C-alpha cells in the first residue's frame, strides 16, 4: 500500500509539472507577452518599446529558463535595463540586488505577483479558496445526502413507480448544466417579472455574511447538476445489491423490508457511489467557475475567469497548480478509499 501511494504521488508530481509547464508555455507565447506589455505599460507602445519593456523585465528569456525561475530551481534574473534601473525577479524595482535571495519560486513559497489583482498570488489563492471552500462545503452537505436518498429509494424496488419517477428526476438534473439551471432559478425565485423574490440574485453579500436567502441558490445550482449523476450510480449499485443472494436469504428469514435495506443492503450499495462522489469533485470545479460568475461570488472560479481574461500569468499558474492538485488528490483518495471499503479488491 505504501509503495502504491508513493508511486501515485510521483505520478501526481510529474503530471503537475507537465501541466504547469503547458500553462506556462501557452501564457508566455509572444502575442500574450505583447498584450501584457501593452496593458501593464502603455497601449500605444511601438514594437521596439514592447521589446525593451519585455526584455528589461526578463520576459524574453527562453521559456524553460523562465519556468525554472518560477519553480525556484534556477536563480531569479537580474537585468539592467536600457533606462539604467536594475530589475530582478526576487526584489522590488530599485532595491539592492545583493540583499535579495537568489532563488524565489514556488518552492520557496513565492507564488509571484498578480497583475490583475495587484496583490501576492499566494494571498489571493488562500482567501479565494476559503470562499470557494465555504461554497463547496454547503454543496456537499446538500448534494450527497439528497443524491444518496434519491438513489437508494429508486434502487430498492427496481422498476416500481417510485423508481421510474425518481430516475426521470435524476436524468433531468444531469441534463441541466449550471448556466441553465442557474438562469431558470434566478428567473423564478428572484426576478420581479415572476414576483416571488424569495432569494437574492447575487451572492456577493454571501462572501462575508452568508445567509439562506443570498447563498441557497448558488449552492442549489451546483448541487443539482452533480446530484443526478451520483443518484443514478447509487440506484444502479443498490439495484444490483438487492438481487444478491444474501438479500434473498434475509427476506426468507423474515427480516422486515426497512431492516433489509438499512442493515444489509445499504453498506454494500454505498461502495460505488463513494468513488463517484470523490471523482465528482473536480467536475464540480467547472460548475464552481460558472456559478461564481453567474452569481458574482468572488471565489476561486471567479478568480480563474478574471486571470484568464487578462492573461495574468502568475495568477493563472497558481490557479492551475491548485486545480491540478485537487483533481489528482481526489483520484488518489477515491482509489485508496475504494480499497478500504471493498475487501475484494487489492492494490497489487
Amino acid at each position, binding site marked *: 500500500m505504501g509503495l502504491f501511494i508513493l508511486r501515485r504521488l510521483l*505520478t501526481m508530481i*510529474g*503530471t503537475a509539472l*507537465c*501541466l504547469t509547464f503547458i*500553462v506556462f508555455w*501557452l*501564457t508566455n*507565447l*509572444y*502575442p*500574450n507577452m*505583447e*498584450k501584457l506589455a501593452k496593458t501593464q505599460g502603455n497601449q500605444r507602445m511601438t514594437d521596439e518599446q514592447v521589446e525593451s519593456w519585455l526584455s528589461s523585465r526578463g520576459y524574453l528569456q527562453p521559456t524553460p529558463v523562465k519556468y525554472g525561475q518560477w519553480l525556484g530551481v534556477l536563480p531569479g534574473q537580474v537585468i539592467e535595463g536600457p533606462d539604467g534601473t536594475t530589475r530582478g525577479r526576487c526584489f522590488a524595482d530599485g532595491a539592492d540586488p545583493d540583499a535579495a535571495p537568489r532563488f524565489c519560486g514556488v518552492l520557496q513559497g513565492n507564488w509571484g505577483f498578480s497583475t490583475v489583482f495587484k496583490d501576492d498570488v499566494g494571498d489571493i489563492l488562500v482567501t479565494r479558496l476559503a470562499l470557494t471552500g465555504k461554497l463547496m462545503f454547503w454543496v456537499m452537505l446538500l448534494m450527497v445526502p439528497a443524491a444518496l436518498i434519491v438513489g437508494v429509494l429508486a434502487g430498492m424496488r427496481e422498476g416500481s413507480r417510485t423508481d421510474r419517477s425518481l430516475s426521470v428526476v435524476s*436524468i*433531468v438534473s*444531469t*441534463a*441541466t*448544466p449550471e*448556466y*441553465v439551471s442557474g*438562469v*431558470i432559478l*434566478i*428567473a423564478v425565485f*428572484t*426576478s*420581479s*417579472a*415572476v414576483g416571488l423574490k424569495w432569494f437574492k*440574485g447575487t451572492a456577493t453579500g454571501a462572501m462575508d455574511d452568508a445567509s439562506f436567502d443570498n447563498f441557497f441558490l448558488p449552492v442549489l445550482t451546483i448541487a443539482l447538476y452533480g446530484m443526478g449523476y451520483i443518484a443514478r450510480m447509487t440506484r444502479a449499485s443498490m439495484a444490483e445489491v438487492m438481487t444478491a443472494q444474501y438479500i434473498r436469504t434475509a427476506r426468507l428469514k423474515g427480516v422486515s423490508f426497512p431492516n433489509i435495506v438499512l442493515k444489509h443492503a445499504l453498506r454494500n450499495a454505498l461502495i460505488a457511489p463513494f468513488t463517484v462522489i470523490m471523482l465528482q469533485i*473536480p467536475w464540480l*470545479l*467547472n460548475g464552481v*467557475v*460558472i456559478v461564481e*460568475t*453567474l452569481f458574482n461570488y468572488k471565489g476561486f*472560479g471567479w478568480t*480563474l*475567469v478574471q486571470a*484568464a*481574461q487578462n*492573461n495574468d500569468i502568475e495568477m*493563472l499558474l497558481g*490557479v*492551475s497548480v491548485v*486545480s*491540478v492538485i485537487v*483533481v*489528482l488528490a481526489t483520484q488518489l483518495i477515491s482509489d485508496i478509499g475504494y480499497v478500504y471499503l471493498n475487501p475484494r479488491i487489492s492494490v497489487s
Partner: protein
Amino acid sequence: MEPLSTVQIVVAILTELLPVWIALALTFLLSIGFRRKLGLYGKLFDSTIGMVGFAIVMFWVFVAVFGAMDLIGTHPPLAQASGMKNKLPGTPLSGAGEGEYAFYLLGGDNLARDVFSRVIAGSWEVIKIAPFATLFAFMVGITLGLPAAYYGGRLDTVLSFVANLVLAFPVILLFYLLVTPEIVATGIPVYMAAVLFLFPIIFLVILFNSRFFVQPVKRNIYLGLTLVVGLWLYLGIAWNADPLGIISFPPNLLVVFVAVVFVNSPTVFRIVRGLAMDIKTRDYVAAAQTRGEGPWYIMLWEILPNARGPLIVDFCLRIGYTTILLGTLGFFGLGLSPESPDWGSTINEGRKLLSIYLHPALPPALSLLSLVLGLNLLADGLREESLRD
C-alpha cells in the same frame, strides 16, 4: 395591432413549426412500420423512454436543418427592428413591411432582435458542431485506445499519462488558453486541428487495409477513395488550403471545434481502453490470434464491433455533453462571434437583464435543456434495449 395572447403565441409557434411536425410524423410512421427490420434502431421504438428521447432529438435536428434551409424562423437572426427592444412575447412588429412576419413571437432581446428566430438559428449552431465533434473525438479515442489496451506495456503507460494530463486540466481554463485571440494568432489551434483531423483518415485507412489486404483490388479502391476524399477534406478543413477552393471552414469555428474534440477525446480513449482490455481476454480474440490474423484486424474487426453497445450509448451521452460544452464556451463569450445566435451566448446576454425581462434568456436555456435531456433519454433507451439481447 393587438399583442398576441399566450394561447395565440403557442398556436402561432406550433403552426410556424409545421414542417418539423410533418417530418417528425413521417420519421416515426416509417420507423415504427419497419422497426423489426432495423436492428438496434428499430428496437428503440419498443421502449417509451427511448422513443421520447428520440422524438426530442429529432425535433431539434429538424428545427435546425429547416431553420438553416430557411423554411421556419420568422425573422433573420441578426435583424434589428426599431422599437422592439426587450419587448414582451407576442408584440406586433412596429412598421412591419409587406411579406414580413408581423409579430415577435417570443419577444425581442436587448438589441431588438427576434428571440424565436435566434433560438432556431442557435439550434443549427449546435447541430452542425456537436455530432461531428463527438464523432471526431471517437475516432481519436478509438484509434489510440485500442492499441493501448491491446499492446499494453509502455505504449499504454504513455498514452494513459497523456490522457490523464488532459483530463486533469480544468475544462474552462483549457478553453480560455486555447480560444483567446492571442493564442489563435500563434496558430496553435490550426496545428492541433492538423494533428486531430489526421486521425479519422488514419482510422479509415487502417480499417480498410486490415480487412481487405488479401484482396488488393478492392483494398486499393477503398484506400484510394479514402485518401483522395479524406486528404481533400483535410486540406480544406484543417489548413484552409483546398486546391479546388470549394471547402473552407470559418477559422473561429475551427478553433471551437478543435477545443471540443481535444477535451472529449481523452475520456473516449479511457472508455475504449477499458472495454478493449475486457474484450481482448475473450475466446474469439484468442481464436483470431490462432488463425494468424494481424493485430489491427483483431482490434478493429473483432474487438471494436463487440464493444459497440456501450460505445453507441456513450456516443449519445457525449453529444449531450458536447452541447453543454458548446454552451459553456458561448456563456463565457469564447470563440464564437459576439452576435452569434448560439444558445450559450444568448443565455449569457439574456442573464444580465434577468431580474426584469425573462423572455430573452429562458427560451435558449430551455432549448438546451430539452436537447440534452432528449439525448440522455435516448441513451437510456438504447442502453435498456441493447442489454436486452
